[in-house]
């Protein structure tokens, strides 16, 4: 009985922690961009101000039921994924869920967004979401290859075990030391999953007027801002768990997660955007090649 209660409590607590960490991740992304462009950047609580303001709008323009449900799916997919991601002190249902469930859950938000945007009937939105799904098609293949390689190396799809093995053996047993090729492929894949600059094909503000977000105002955009917090958190924590030994305590855990994100963002704000076909070609060539080579080394 106590165990059930603890799991329920953790399943509630983990998304809340993820949201708070995610807010600071959004802040870090914007601050880093500002520093790279020699600006001051937003104040400390800016991501929170934005979200509260968007939910506080007095006229909310809905385009129908599916529009509402799509946003709930987009946020809900990540909220469910948080309970499967172990953090220091809380495992949630990570041991029961495993990596494969997690891989499925990280695809739900894109599909939810596609549903929601579909009902807006705005051509920019449709172009944006078709690009987002193409991008998903591009990065999911190296993503699955990387997950498969890691699972093969540790002979487990259980994230709790994977982290425990890495923490027991020290730095030389970390995924990044054992499988450097897969780690590089993973970093490129993670960059594409975040949709940051060279791979920012579906947001494209100047070209298709922010794509999927074109008809989103008020609480719908607020929902997407919340989703962005979860997205940054989820993607960087998956990388930290697979390759950087998870977190021994909260300090090292947050340092690693923010560090990984900082690498991606620093690269992102130095580059312009690829075309959609370039993205697919690049993702199916380099990370896939590196990943397959990495798997060959892991399997021998």
């Amino acid at each position: 009985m106590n165990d059930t209660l603890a799991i329920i409590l953790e399943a509630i607590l983990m998304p809340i922690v993820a949201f708070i960490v995610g807010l600071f991740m959004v802040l870090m992304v914007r601050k880093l961009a500002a520093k790279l462009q020699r600006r001051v950047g937003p104040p400390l609580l800016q991501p929170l101000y934005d979200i509260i303001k968007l939910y506080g709008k007095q006229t909310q323009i809905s385009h129908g039921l599916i529009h509402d449900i799509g946003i709930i799916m987009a946020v809900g997919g990540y909220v469910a994924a948080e309970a499967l991601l172990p953090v220091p002190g809380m495992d949630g249902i990570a041991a029961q869920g495993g990596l494969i469930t997690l891989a499925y859950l990280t695809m739900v938000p894109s599909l939810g967004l596609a549903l929601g945007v579909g009902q807006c009937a705005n051509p920019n939105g449709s172009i944006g979401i078709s690009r987002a799904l193409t991008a998903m098609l591009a990065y999911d293949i190296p993503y699955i290859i990387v997950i498969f390689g890691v699972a093969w190396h540790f002979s487990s799809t259980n994230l709790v075990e994977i982290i425990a093995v890495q923490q027991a053996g020290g730095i030389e047993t970390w995924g990044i030391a054992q499988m450097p090729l897969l780690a590089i492929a993973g970093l490129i894949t993670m960059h594409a999953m975040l949709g940051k600059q060279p791979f920012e094909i579906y947001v494209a503000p100047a070209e298709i007027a922010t794509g999927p977000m074109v008809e989103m105002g008020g609480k719908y955009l607020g929902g997407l801002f919340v989703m962005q917090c979860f997205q940054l958190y989820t993607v960087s924590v998956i990388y930290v768990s697979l390759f950087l030994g998870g977190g021994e305590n909260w300090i090292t855990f947050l340092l690693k997660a923010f560090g990984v994100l900082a690498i991606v963002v620093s690269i992102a704000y130095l580059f312009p955007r690829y075309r959609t076909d370039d993205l697919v070609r690049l993702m199916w060539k380099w990370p896939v090649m590196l990943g397959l080579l990495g798997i060959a080394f892991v399997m021998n």
Partner: protein
Amino acid sequence: MVNQLKNIEIETRPAESRNPFARVFDEIVRFCQSRSMFMLHYCTGCGAIELPPAMTSRFDMERLGIQPMVTPRQADILLITGYVSIKTLKRVILTYEQMGSPKYVIGICSCTVNGGMYWQSYATAKKLDEYLPVDMYIAGCMPRPEAVITGLRELMENIRTGKADAWKQYYKNYDYYLGNQQHLFGNNWQTPTDVIGEAEHYRLMGPNTLGEHTRILQQVQQPLEAMEMKI
């Protein structure tokens, strides 16, 4: 399909009936609204040239929580920089009506105040606030980025203290604004947004919402039809 869209109702209660705790909450929301403003700039004239320095590294608007957005649905501020020709004004009104409330209009340059150097032009709308409720004018030909940021800071202060509610005037005095619009565009003028319906839904009807001009609108109004899907 159209009927389904109409069935979704979002409840909003008038502010007076709320309890003290909700009023504290309103204060917080107003503070956040003042510190986070998404800006849609409709750059029609020369004033636009002063906005890039205001947004980029020299003056950096993002430190005040102001950032550019690209669609009216996401935006809070409609920034109109420069003269508004009659053709442009139609687009400005369409854009304004698509924004979610609370929304604010800022007129930059003297052309939006009184027509400026285009006073004698036959194709220019002289005073912007005859067609849209304007929250803030930033005069000058053109105002420097410092002036733009000072104006935006003043708007922030107005939002925080609850004084910036010109958007309610558009619902409450719709007949006046529609009359001026019909004077320019002719009596067949209609927009896709049902302003009267919105005013009823959000309880923003005033004594001047309906009048002779809205009667003309209701006579000539064509129902909007969904575009045919083609592949």
